[in-house]
């Protein structure tokens, strides 16, 4: 057998060179070993392309031609001057600001005791698949692993808002790693916002891992508002302990090119997971959500509800896979992805999958793609509602089912405002 040496693309070569240039800045130790191992694995595989199933619809070898230089550390004081995450309105949240991959200390309002925040040297992923090329790049190049620990039994009253900001005047790339541990019996509402200057071609590779302990509760929303020139690669790893309950919603409406991957793993029995998505794609946006829900233990319940509206020449992708391991009996999994195509040139690829190895399970999936219902539009218009407004009502109601998975009212309303803003912009 002949071993093939792949020809590296310009971007792959540049990424490897970036790591080589940075290597001496990293202190020696286990973290550096993890970085080197990750980079070796990336160098062997290269950027994922369309022949790799999970990247079939978002071929990064093709899409990532130019690698932007790594962003510098944030300038002193920028944490105060940037109104990070301000577009979400006032949620009364504890805010952490991460600028260019580095934690900028903020404490408004002060975090309650029992919540510990630290920024450590990079580490190998604990939930995400370290062999995934994008996760590997993140492991190699993220400057810090920013860690938030919620102590056992802590009920964090106000949401924690982690605002990821790119402070950029020139194209730049930012690698960010965030790890959140929700202790046993703790509860947390967590908001992630991702933003950057709309006029700069930024690149982001963000990996967030959230370990939700036994009997803990997490409500999580991620909002991408990085701008139409941004290339956003994000990975979310979730692990659910025994009887944990998690709701996690991703709002995709920001980046020009976005790929969001989720790996959710049931590690304790009787846990409940709701993964929701709201996509509002326009212009030439490309937005891909690829997820794996891994029922590794019995008695888990998972729901996926993804709603995507596609306008203009935008493209949406949903690839979802539910895996039920051989002994994960009594698993209850249901996955739904629905897309509304608002123009002739809009496109959506929907690919739900089930991989079931246990025999006593309830699993199902569904996918739909369609236009707005003409009969419903006519009914609304016949009552005096102009076409655009009638469409807006129907789109809002279409997306509403996903938005309503959030039970934290101010957060749900803030997401609703983003939906309304998008609808207003389309006229």
């Amino acid at each position, binding site marked *: 057998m002949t071993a093939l040496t792949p020809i590296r693309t310009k971007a792959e070569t540049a990424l490897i060179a970036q790591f080589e240039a940075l290597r001496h800045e990293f202190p020696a130790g286990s973290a550096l070993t993890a970085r080197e191992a990750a980079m070796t694995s990336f160098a062997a595989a290269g950027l994922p392309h369309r022949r790799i199933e999970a990247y079939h619809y978002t071929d990064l070898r093709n899409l990532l031609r130019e690698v932007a230089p790594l962003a510098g550390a944030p300038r002193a004081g920028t944490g105060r001057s940037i109104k990070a995450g301000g577009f979400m309105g006032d949620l009364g949240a504890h805010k952490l600001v991460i600028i260019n991959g580095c934690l900028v200390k903020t404490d408004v309002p002060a975090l309650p005791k029992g919540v510990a925040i630290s920024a450590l040297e990079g580490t190998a992923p604990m939930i995400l698949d370290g062999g995934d090329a994008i996760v590997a790049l993140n492991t190699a190049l993220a400057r810090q692993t920013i860690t938030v620990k919620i102590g056992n039994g802590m009920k964090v009253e106000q949401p924690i808002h982690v605002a990821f900001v790119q402070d950029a005047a020139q194209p730049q790339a930012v690698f960010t790693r965030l790890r959140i541990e929700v202790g046993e019996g703790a509860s947390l509402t967590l908001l992630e916002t991702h933003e950057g200057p709309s006029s700069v071609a930024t690149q982001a590779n963000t990996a967030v891992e959230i370990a939700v302990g036994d009997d803990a509760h997490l409500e999580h929303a991620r909002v991408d508002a990085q701008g139409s020139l941004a290339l956003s690669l994000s990975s979310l790893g979730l692990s659910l302990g025994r009887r944990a309950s998690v709701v996690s919603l991703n709002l995709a409406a920001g980046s020009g090119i976005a790929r969001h991957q989720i790996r959710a793993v049931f590690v304790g029995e009787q846990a409940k997971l709701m993964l929701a998505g709201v996509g509002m794609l326009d212009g030439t946006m490309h937005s891909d959500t690829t997820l794996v829900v891994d029922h590794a233990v019995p008695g888990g319940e998972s729901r996926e509800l993804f709603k995507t509206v596609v306008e203009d020449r935008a493209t949406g992708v949903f690839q979802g896979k539910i895996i039920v391991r051989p002994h994960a009996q009594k698993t209850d999994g249901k996955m739904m992805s629905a897309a509304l195509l608002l123009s002739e040139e809009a496109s959506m690829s929907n690919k739900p999958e089930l991989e079931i190895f246990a025999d006593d399970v309830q699993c199902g999936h569904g996918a739909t793609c369609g236009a707005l219902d*003409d009969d419903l539009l*006519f009914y609304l*218009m016949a*009552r005096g509602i102009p076409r655009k407004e009638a469409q807006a009502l129907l789109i809002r109601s279409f997306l509403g089912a996903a938005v309503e998975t959030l039970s934290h009212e101010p957060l749900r309303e803030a997401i609703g405002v983003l939906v309304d803003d998008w609808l207003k912009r389309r006229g």
Partner: protein
Amino acid sequence: MLDIRNLHAEIDGKPILKGVTLTVKRGEVAAIMGPNGSGKSTLSYVIAGKQDYEVTQGEVLLDGANVLEMDPDERAAKGLFLAFQYPLEIPGVATMTFLKAALNAQRKKRGEEEISPGDFIRQVNQAGDKLGIPRDMLRRALNVGFSGGEKKRMEIMQMALFKPRMCVLDETDSGLDIDALRIVADGVNALRAPDRAFLVITHYQRLLNHIVPDTVHVMADGRIVKSGGPELAVELEAKGYADYLPAAAA
């Protein structure tokens, strides 16, 4: 008020209306009766502006203005209202939200101010109470999970709220039991006014016992083939439509 002149319309190239001519005067209640497939519902859709139908000839004038050149929402703002035979369910849109959006859109197009929230609630409750519509129904998604009778009552309630001048009722009696029929008919009768006209489309005379028309027109094969007074409806009920079916005419 409503002048339909030599109206021809087709769907997917198949002619349905083949020269309908009909006038409804201010304050008049006109009924259209006819066998299944005669084009009654098509006529109501064409008047309201459904896109599926292509008008190939003729005009529909509302107070002299040709509504065929208007979008459905403009027609509504001009005072045209179609009570649907099959009112649509709109999941995720609360009935109150819909009613307010519709009322304000019509007012805006007419250059009127938005209704105040207080007035809106009062008017909705008033109209709803008259038709026996429970308040909690108004908080639910429009028509979702409503029974057939509730949907029809909701249509009449909208009519009461929007105060249109020209009301077209498409088979409002279908699917209603006697009690529901009476409630709906009472709702319609309460709206009869010297400056408001009705075009009541029905297959059966039953509805016309409750909403007594001034004129009755028989529609068959896409045309109005006979016109008369209320006695015509009684005659049809007794003799059926056999005389008007194409086979009989041939």
